[in-house]
């Protein structure tokens, strides 16, 4: 399936874009998506941490991603 990822903060720089489209296996889980992203963008693994948000909620590592989910890559937040 094809998914679209929203990128914020430093991740926009890593992707060189605020959005990334990716072909992934159906039923991919959050942790597998992260591994895949780190292969494509090794710089992600050098961040202090980062999360995958699914439909505006922090995703669990074993959570399954559906093609119509809104998916975002969330680097360490620094508001306030």
């Amino acid at each position, binding site marked *: 399936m094809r998914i679209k990822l*929203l990128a*914020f*903060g*430093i991740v926009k*720089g890593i992707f060189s874009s605020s959005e990334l489209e990716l072909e992934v296996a159906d039923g991919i889980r959050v942790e597998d998506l992260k591994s895949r992203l780190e292969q494509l963008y090794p710089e992600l693994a*050098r*961040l*202090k941490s980062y999360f995958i*948000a699914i439909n*505006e*909620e*922090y995703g669990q590592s074993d959570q399954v991603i559906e093609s119509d989910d809104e998916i*975002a890559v*969330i*680097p*360490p*937040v*620094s*508001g*306030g």
Partner: protein
Amino acid sequence: MIDIKISNFHLDPELCLDIQADDSCGGTVSFVGTVRNETKGKKVLRLEFECYESMAVKEMKKIAEHCVNNLGVKHAVLHHRVGILSPGEAAVVIVVSSPHRDAAFKACEYAINTLKETVPIWKKEVFEDGEQWVSAHP
């Protein structure tokens, strides 16, 4: 009462106090986070804030709801600024109030600490000789 806002414009702490004014609350605690003019001795020219707005509003609402439902305050106002800010400008305003002060102090500290951990807002510091996303790297 819960009031959440993400704004491109100047934040008004006075307004945040006014909108939650309540005669039954004897204690109001506010926190204003402003842009500092230096980081580790380096002069900061400006901060650039960006956010994942729909999720940020949700996460800010969770914080406010926890304050009201579990920490004993009656009102929680959380306003956050985005865009380009200069030193001295307010980036965040939090106001909570409760019948007695203890709950308000605790809730205000909880709110700012949690906001800094969970709300998807990012700031980039711009120096004279470069820039960096805050907290991105270990």
